């Protein structure tokens, strides 16, 4: 089966400027829903990439494919699989939400009766059930965002492209929006591309991230794998005589580095759960003062990728050669 998105030496030129420069990648595993974060500083080419996927721009070289369909040559088939929530306000303000969303559902190919039914269903789903007969122009900013989400999912697309979905939302509405995005992939099996400047939103919802800078992909990460890897690296602080701890850690095939003062850096093998450390420290009669996972936040990944940060803060400082070896194995 094809990947959700495949970019093959994709170049896009707008006017005389080359915005995307021969980018290649395969994003999103086929099958169950995946959320992909699209990150990058302003002017990196995120919007151009989204618009190229939507068939709005013709590639100057290479190709972009969504679920195996070429975005330019099979534009109609691609659009039948897509839902798009643009960043800016985008609707006919005078029309009631139900009318507008029904019309868009029909344009996506739903029969009239099904389109009306799905428009009602979707508006209730996004929390606009009671306001569905009001003109969209009278909605608050948060309601407009929800209406935009409703039109993107009313026809049940395979892939939903969300451009800054939490822009202008208050904390409650933001939480609701992120919950809806998670539901889209987990319960309804949709693939999601989330383009956002809010790294926390991406971190909370996405399984993969692609970071663009100056029209090229500077980093692609599987956040799920990163989270799993982070869970393997533990910082431990104990009270008591910890001289026997290294041997005890060896028994569970974990590697430990004593930093002095009861502080340890430990790498756990894949199959060992963190709870095993409690047993090990108990067997050495040690009290645990602190136990933390190393957490390479998305912000750090992003800053490293765009060149504002050389490495995770505090990671380089005080790192000993043996420790570096442990990091090398991570």
């Amino acid at each position, binding site marked *: 089966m094809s990947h959700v998105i495949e970019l093959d030496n994709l170049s896009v030129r*707008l*006017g*005389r400027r080359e915005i995307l420069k021969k980018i290649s990648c395969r994003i999103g595993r086929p099958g169950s829903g995946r959320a992909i974060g699209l990150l990058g500083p302003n002017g990196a080419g995120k919007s151009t990439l989204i*618009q190229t996927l*939507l*068939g*709005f*721009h013709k590639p100057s070289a290479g190709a972009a494919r969504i679920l195996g369909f070429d975005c330019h040559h099979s*534009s*109609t*088939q691609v*659009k*039948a699989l*897509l*839902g*798009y929530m*643009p960043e*800016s*306000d*985008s*609707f*006919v*303000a*005078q029309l009631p939400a139900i*009318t507008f969303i029904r*019309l*868009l559902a*029909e*344009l*996506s*190919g*739903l*029969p*009239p009766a*099904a389109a009306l*039914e*799905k428009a*009602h*269903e*979707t508006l*209730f*789903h996004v929390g606009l*059930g009671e306001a569905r007969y009001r003109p969209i122009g009278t909605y608050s900013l948060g309601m407009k965002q929800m209406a935009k989400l409703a*039109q993107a*999912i*009313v*026809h*049940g697309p395979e892939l939903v492209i969300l451009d800054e979905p939490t822009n202008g939302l208050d904390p409650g509405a933001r939480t609701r929006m992120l919950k809806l995005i998670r539901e889209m992939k987990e319960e*309804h*099996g*949709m693939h999601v591309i989330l383009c956002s400047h809010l790294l926390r939103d991406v971190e909370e919802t996405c399984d993969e991230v692609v970071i663009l800078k100056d029209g090229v992909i500077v980093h692609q990460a599987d956040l799920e794998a990163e989270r799993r890897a982070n869970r393997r690296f533990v910082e431990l602080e104990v009270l008591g005589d910890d001289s026997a701890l290294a041997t005890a850690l060896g028994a569970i095939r974990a590697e430990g580095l004593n930093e002095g003062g009861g502080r340890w850096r430990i790498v756990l093998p894949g199959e060992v759960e963190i709870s095993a450390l409690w047993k090990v420290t108990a067997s050495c009669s040690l009290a645990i003062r602190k136990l933390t996972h190393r957490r390479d936040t998305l912000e750090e990944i992003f800053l490293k990728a765009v060149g504002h940060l050389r490495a995770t803060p505090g990671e380089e400082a005080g790192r000993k050669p043996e420790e570096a070896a442990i990091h090398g194995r991570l």
Partner: protein
Amino acid sequence: MAVYKRGYSRYTGDLTGRWQRLVAVPRFVWGRLFGQRYVVALFVLALFWPLLCCLFVYVANHAELWSSFGRDMAKMLEINGQFFLVFMNVQSVFTMILAAMAGPGLIAPDIANNALPLYFSRPQSRVDYVLSRFLVVAGLLSLVTILPALFLLAMQTGLAGFRWALDFWYLPAGVLAGFALWILIVSLVALACSAYVKWRVVSGALVLAFFFLLGGAAEMMNAVFRTTSMSHLNPAKAMNRIWAALLRTEPGAELNTAVCAASLAALAVLLILVLERKLRPVEVIS
């Protein structure tokens, strides 16, 4: 189960074809248009003239009603190309006003509200988008042009007999082709004005102004250059000349049918270029 209790689920049924998607917009827009009193009023008004023409056809086919008025009256009441040319000229005025009412709401709100990316991210092309809006105007105008014309032709054939239909075999084709050309031009003008101006009222005024200003400009140039050939640039006059040729009536000497057809074709191309330029999902600044 009530819709608010059901929750969201993805649509998994059959999808409609391209043509059914194309008529979705006309259905919505016609519903909205006929909900407006002034559109309905104008629509009813536009049907008065066809009613009068029906009366005329009835009277013309009942010799006993006018035989006492002599032979001149008989010639005046003849149903021929001239009769249909007058019918088409009057109806064309209503089509312009109807297009000025219906046209501006078709594209201007989508551009003003930045809704084009939503339409173009659906499985429809720019051609489909324009075609669906064109169907709105063309369908509406057909109701006050082609439909009454067909009724008149059928009525006349019914009353005058098959012999009349054989003598004037070119009239149905001429009326249909003439109206179809006019509807094409008026619809394109309405759509181009709607795409060019974001404000509906201004866009509606522009549709009417387009015909009057072009006509005025053509007459002004005629006066300046002491010629009549600039009338080819007046779409109403050019169309009238083509109708006269199609209905085989006596045309005025000052206009050439081929040049009129060429000028209208050039106008149509220009209007399509305006639509092509304005209807883009995203604006690219080079």
